[in-house]
């Protein structure tokens, strides 16, 4: 038997009898440091304050978070190391296993009732396994995918019992390193041998990422034939269907996943968004309501769920007057959001517009108009631009609320800043046919496209010339500005001349209002550090 005297244990269960019985077993095995809790919320708090080596966690804790939600938050929040042993204790293990998120699986399941011998046998084995896998787990803690890969090769060669686990870590590492071809070969080989749900998911995601949508779809569908109860496969299928423009079937796939596993806040949020797009306001309001409820105790809480709920409820009424009770729910949702995110002026603007839209339907046009005006005024002073999809949404709301000029202005900005993204341009075209707005960025976008091609072909001088021309036409476009800045820095070499540096700083300054949520924000920060020498 392993030595447990120096291990830090945490036992979480809502039955005090069960907790004390497990504690007695652990003491009997030599464990000295055994903490206990009865709620998942406490687990999170306790793991913030203390590093546990072994956690025995009940799956079904009555009210509040279940064990799977807790594990997910522990891992995403990095509150436990990969070296920590997490055992999920369940009354009926198959149910919990089905619902486990593939990327956050516990190290083992233990079915109640269990005796001391079973607990000891399980923990002995897990301690041994974690010891052998230590190089991999340490590398995972450091998020060093290359080191994970090297360690996997070593360990799999030494002991074939760990080969399946190593294979899985290896696949994840190849994904993180962007070594797509190797990954595809590996996954195809794994699946040719045996069907494994994680391999289907990874392969489907990989094909999706590479734009091979029909094969991605086929992979998820094939996986679902073997594993019809695996929510992650439905998630993947939904994403592929959406990318193919089939938002109806994508919604269906997400609803299937939620039937299996409703306690997934991000999945509910995604369903809400998709159902909104599909104008299925019943489903949208239900999904957002769930997401809001779960969000109150979750790190995955998002203001979008409050706004989504209010908007779905407003739309659900159609042309009819809004029911009083519905208006109360909207007020509550937005009120709660205002309180939670009081420091975010952009959200305050969106909250006001959303409330105004509902009040307009509730027969209170005077208050709606007042709120709208306040929002328009506040919008002019926002320190940051809206993200593209938010901007489109807000533009639509402004138009519905009779603020056509403000709406047009926002769309124009959208074209200036995001005009190189065809999806954004499609969104703009849905709201306006004004040629002045729609054709605003065309020439610049084309020049930018040519510039990118030259840059890829290492014709750097030609690329810079094209980017500069594009930038002169559209100085606020994020892609063009970043491309120009990058080309300038490249041109400047180790010690860029002052003039060039000045030009580079100017293009970055012109897009300094880009939202922090933009995927290009990190690239922007990097370029800034170089250009401003910070």
């Amino acid at each position: 038997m392993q030595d447990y005297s120096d291990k830090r244990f945490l036992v979480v269960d809502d039955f005090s009898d069960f907790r004390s019985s497990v504690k007695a077993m652990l003491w009997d095995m030599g464990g000295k440091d055994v903490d206990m809790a009865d709620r998942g919320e406490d687990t999170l708090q306790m793991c913030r304050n203390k590093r546990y080596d072994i956690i025995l966690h009940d799956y079904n804790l009555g009210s509040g978070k279940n064990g799977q939600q807790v594990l997910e938050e522990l891992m995403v929040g990095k509150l436990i190391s990969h070296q920590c042993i997490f055992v999920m204790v369940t009354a009926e293990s198959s149910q919990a296993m089905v619902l486990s998120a593939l990327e956050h699986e516990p190290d083992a399941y233990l079915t109640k009732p269990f005796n001391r011998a079973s607990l000891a046998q399980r923990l002995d084995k897990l301690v041994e396994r974690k010891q052998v896998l230590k190089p991999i787990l340490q590398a995972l803690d450091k998020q060093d995918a290359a080191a994970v890969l090297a360690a996997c090769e070593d360990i799999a060669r030494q002991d074939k019992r760990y080969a399946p686990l190593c294979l899985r870590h290896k696949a994840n590492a190849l994904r993180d390193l962007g070594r797509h071809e190797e990954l595809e070969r590996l996954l195809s080989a794994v699946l040719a041998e045996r069907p494994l749900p994680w391999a289907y998911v990874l392969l489907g995601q990989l094909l999706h990422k590479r734009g091979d949508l029909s094969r991605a779809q086929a992979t998820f569908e094939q996986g679902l034939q073997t594993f019809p109860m695996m929510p992650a496969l439905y998630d993947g299928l939904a994403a592929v269907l959406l990318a193919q423009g089939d938002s109806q079937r994508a919604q269906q796939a997400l609803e299937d996943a939620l039937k299996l596993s409703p306690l997934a806040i991000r999945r509910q949020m995604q369903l809400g968004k998709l159902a909104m797009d599909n104008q299925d306001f019943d489903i949208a309001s239900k999904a957002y309501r769930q997401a809001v409820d779960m969000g109150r105790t979750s790190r995955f809480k998002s203001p979008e769920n409050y706004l989504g709920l209010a908007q779905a409820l407003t739309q659900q009424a159609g042309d009819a007057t809004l029911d009083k009770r519905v208006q109360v729910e909207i007020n509550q949702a937005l009120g709660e959001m205002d309180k939670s995110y009081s420091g975010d002026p952009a959200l305050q603007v969106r909250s006001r517009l959303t409330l105004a839209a509902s009040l307009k339907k509730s027969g209170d046009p005077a208050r709606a108009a007042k709120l709208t005006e306040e929002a328009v005024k506040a919008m002019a002073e926002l320190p940051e631009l809206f993200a593209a999809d938010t901007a489109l949404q807000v533009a639509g709301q402004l138009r519905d609320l009779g603020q056509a000029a403000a709406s047009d202005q926002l769309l124009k900005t959208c074209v200036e800043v995001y005009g190189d993204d065809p999806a954004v341009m499609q969104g703009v075209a849905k709201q306006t046919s004004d040629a002045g707005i729609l054709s605003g960025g065309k020439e610049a976008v084309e020049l930018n496209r040519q510039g990118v091609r030259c840059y890829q072909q290492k014709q750097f001088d030609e690329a810079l010339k094209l980017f500069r021309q594009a930038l002169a036409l559209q100085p606020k476009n994020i892609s063009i500005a970043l491309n120009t800045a990058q080309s300038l820095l490249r041109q400047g070499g180790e010690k860029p001349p002052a003039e060039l540096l000045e030009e580079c700083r100017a293009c970055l300054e012109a897009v300094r209002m880009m939202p922090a949520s933009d995927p290009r924000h990190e690239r922007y920060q990097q370029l800034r550090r170089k250009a401003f020498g910070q």
Partner: protein
Amino acid sequence: MSEQPDGLDIATVIASTVHDMKNSLALLTQSHAQWQAQLPAELRQGREQGIIDYEFARLNGMLVQLLGLYKLGANQLPLHPAYHELEDFIEAQLARHQEVLQSRQIEARCEVDSFDLMGFFDQELLGSVVANIINNSIRYARSQLLVSAWQEGEFLVLSICDDGQGYPPSMIEQQSSYVLGLNQSSGSTGLGLYFAGRIAALHQRQGLQGRIELANGGPLGGGVFRIYLP
């Protein structure tokens, strides 16, 4: 909302009741173990303790099996196969029965043909099958129990042997009809064979299907239960 004229779906009612019974039994078992631990040593090892432990395990096994059969019928028993170490799997099964084995003074051994033998199966489902067989063997074993595993061509073989009197000849002769569910007269044993056969058959690979086999003799001279998995 309209009521269904025929009211309850009895199978679903039974399944949900069995689920509650299982939870209740889990609490009962756990409380009993705790209470037992507080007893003075001389009272802890009584004959009654052995009976209680054994019957707890048997009840639990039957309830798990009943739930499994319901899910098989409702097509809700999806397979969750993964790679597992055989030695670890078998040791875990034996650990579940430790108290009973001790109180009946049965020596239980695990033998795998190499320490790193791996299998690809649904650990929970196969675990519930093996637990039932071990339970059954404990009833008939005199002093020894052997659980072993080896690779035989395309199949992984798991075998559970005891040194008891063996299976009745009629059962060995008619094993296939038990497995097919044709012979339902012999109560829980027949049902157990049916369940084991179905679980084994859920394991498939490249046209090959899992199966079970009953025999007498074997290394310990008693009953032999073998599970073949592709």
